[in-house]
């Protein structure tokens, strides 16, 4: 069974600084997709970034980038120039066979 582990229940960062959220996963598959979703207090699940496992290049979306290490089964999210609006729960997710398997989330606090 696929499992996703987020080892940091909570993280904090100063505004304008950089923070990295960790995620590891367990799978025997070679072809899969990984995602980071953001859930602010409004509770909406917002896609932040996605990574196809067959692509070696790390995905980037503006201030958000990932460090995808396929052999190590690691998929960390880096947020640069953190903003107050980045404060939220962040969920790492693995997709295979139509369903998403989520980690338990990391609560990110951004300090002004």
């Amino acid at each position: 069974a696929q499992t996703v582990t987020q080892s940091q229940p909570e993280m904090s960062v100063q505004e304008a600084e950089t923070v990295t959220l960790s995620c590891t996963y367990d799978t025997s598959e070679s072809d899969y997709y990984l995602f980071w979703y953001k859930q602010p207090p409004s509770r909406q699940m917002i896609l932040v970034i996605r990574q196809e496992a067959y692509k070696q290049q790390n995905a980037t979306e503006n201030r958000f980038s990932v460090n995808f290490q396929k052999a190590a089964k690691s998929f960390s999210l880096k947020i640069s120039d953190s903003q107050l609006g980045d404060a939220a729960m962040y969920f790492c997710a693995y997709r295979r066979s139509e369903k998403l398997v989520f980690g338990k989330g990391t609560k990110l606090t951004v300090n002004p």
Partner: protein
Amino acid sequence: DTAVSQTPKYLVTQMGNDKSIKCEQNLGHDTMYWYKQDSKKFLKIMFSYNNKELIINETVPNRFSPKSPDKAHLNLHINSLELGDSAVYFCASSQTGEETQYFGPGTRLLVL
């Protein structure tokens, strides 16, 4: 122009009642999902439908019955509600061949 919408957003009810949550997507997707987020924020898949056909049913009590009248709608009916059903229920959709799932705003269910 809401992509995935759910009604109601909040639902407070008594134990033993029957309730329904509705989901609609206007993205033209062919696959829809129900996820449950518990009090610890853990998200888990419940059901998935592709073109009105059930494709995932993840160890959910029989009191939960999804219904998909067409591929743009996926409703969730819950019979004999229990305290443990209190959670946030998310609907999501995706298109076959495109791995990203888009989430609705969630429905917070509170069973008293």
